[in-house]
């Protein structure tokens, strides 16, 4: 595909990584270990896509060798098809992206029937993100996905409002977050990763509650709640008024939360929030994350995941380190 005047465009100034994208990238350099373990899952490297930004994998297949990822994380699945929120659903902010998708997905049945067979062919563990409107829905999703071949772990999205309890967000109330976790845990033999929201006074309280309820790992942060107004129409820029903020703007907040939670609980963490480059990823590892998830960066540069994996390898070689696990939580205060 390369011709005069055309070359792959992954290596942008100040952007993800520094290697041109090669879908047939060589295996990890000899003598360097990138592999990590999360809740019994062995990941060949600590780099995952963030749920919701990676569709069901196939969308990114032209740019990302799915077999090279640490794990594959798919979009949130709900029990029934979810139409999502009305448009406009997106607006760009300074160094950030505000979105309000509303968990649009085809529902559990269609996922198992139409998406899972494709995803099964890849070797990295498959992590399915789930959300329910009630605790019962979480439990049912967990049970049914555990029976479906090819699912290796569940990531529980507790940042959605509970319809029955007047719209209270599960993830902001420690007791509710714990009940969701316990319900999922009680209905699956699979490892359970709980995804935490940063929109709380003290994230460590929620972290402790879900770990006590059985969470095998935590992922954080979900998006920060934000808003934008169009001064020409004088109306909110998003149809649903409030959306989730992601991208490099939120990175300092994400890193702080990861650092605090890492000092509070013993389970492994998947850190995320504004990771654009391998350097960003290393900050999260140093703060105590065992793996990282890359979201908005893929929207900007579809090859970002590959560039970040390669960048981690380069960092280890450059620093004379043999094992990425030596970086995890290695921050000196």
């Amino acid at each position: 595909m390369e011709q005069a005047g055309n070359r792959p465009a992954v290596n942008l100034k100040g952007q993800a990584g520094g290697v041109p994208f090669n879908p047939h990238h060589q295996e990890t350099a000899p003598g360097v270990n990138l592999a990590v373990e999360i809740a019994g899952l062995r990941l060949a490297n600590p780099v995952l896509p963030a749920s919701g930004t990676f569709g069901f994998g196939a969308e990114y297949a032209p740019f990302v060798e799915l077999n090279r990822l640490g794990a594959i994380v798919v979009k949130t699945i709900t029990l029934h098809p979810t139409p999502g929120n009305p448009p406009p659903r997106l607006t760009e902010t300074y160094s950030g992206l505000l979105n309000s998708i509303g968990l649009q997905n085809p529902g559990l049945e269609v996922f198992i029937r139409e998406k899972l067979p494709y995803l099964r062919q890849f070797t990295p563990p498959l992590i399915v993100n789930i959300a329910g409107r009630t605790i019962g829905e979480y439990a049912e999703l967990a049970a049914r996905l555990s029976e479906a071949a090819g699912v290796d772990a569940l990531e529980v999205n507790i940042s959605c409002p509970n319809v029955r309890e007047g719209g209270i967000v599960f993830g902001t109330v420690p007791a509710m977050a714990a009940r969701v976790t316990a319900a999922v845990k009680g209905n699956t033999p699979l490892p359970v990763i709980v995804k935490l929201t940063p929109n709380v006074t003290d994230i460590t309280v929620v972290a402790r509650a879900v770990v006590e309820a059985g969470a095998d790992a935590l992922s954080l942060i979900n998006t920060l709640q934000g808003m934008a107004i169009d001064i020409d129409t004088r109306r909110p820029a998003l149809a649903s008024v409030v959306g989730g903020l992601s991208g490099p703007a939120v990175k300092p907040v994400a890193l702080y939360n990861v650092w605090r939670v890492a000092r509070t609980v013993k389970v492994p963490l998947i850190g995320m929030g504004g990771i654009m480059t391998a350097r960003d990823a290393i900050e999260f590892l140093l703060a105590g994350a065992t793996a990282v998830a890359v979201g908005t960066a893929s929207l900007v540069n579809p090859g970002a995941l590959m560039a970040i994996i390669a960048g981690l390898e380069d960092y280890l070689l450059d620093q004379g380190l043999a094992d990425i696990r030596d970086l995890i939580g290695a921050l000196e205060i």
Partner: protein
Amino acid sequence: MAADLSVELLPGLRLKNPVMPASGTYECGSANVYNPGQLGAIVTKSVAPVPWPGNAPPRLHETTGGLLNAVGIPSEGVVAFREKVLPTLRQYDTALIISVAGETTEEFARVIQALEGEAGISAYELNFSCPNLGDGIPFGTNPDLLYQAVARARQETKRPIIVKLSPNVTDIALMAREAQKAGASAVALINTLTGMAIDVRRRRPVLGNTFGGLSGPAIKPVALRMVWEVAGAVDLPVIGVGGISNTSDALEFLLAGARAIQVGTANFANPLVMPQIINGIASYLEENGFSKITDIIGLARKGEEDWG
């Protein structure tokens, strides 16, 4: 005809325009580029009961679209402030808001006591949300403590009390309601979001204090969302602050329901930004056929109930 930019921030406190600096980001007359009397109000840096040195450096770090700081409210203490700083600030022909900091309920009260005899103070702004003291969870994030501190300050003064709210809470509207119940006259939001950065080469936190407060354009969407929430939840004047860098940003906050706005980090990048925003708002009003600024305050909320 030029549009009327004046707003009645509080009963009896009319500002010539809704633009003022965020505490700690503007020194009157330092970059001597304009007369501070042009501003809607002057907001001082936070005044502590006794001299505070502030945090160990490095105190600053630029992040993508933001500024992380762990300055830690250095202050010469209220006595030195009263003797040395206040007399100059009083000269300017605009409202004067004194930002008050403390580590305990009594400390806030002490600062106010020390200033009560002084003329020329339009209001106090209570800074509860400095995230840099203690373990990172400031007492301004606890609704009961917030209530007590505001109520205690209320006993000391009849002057208006503005409560500056921390965004690092689950429910900011709840905090605003507590402030109101305790006697606050207005709320200002948001203070900084707590954040952190790591130097991957040295494998150490960048800031001397490990973590700090994030400000600047990066946090604007969060600030706007909280202003929107609070303006819809409490019947108190709201001052919007958080990442406002230009006229358009300022207008978003006014349209969301803020009665005034504060400009912080943008002063560092552009010392003229506040007068530019004042002029920019005036032009916007004229171009869009509004005769006074109060016509656009909260205008984006029109038909809110239909959105569900």
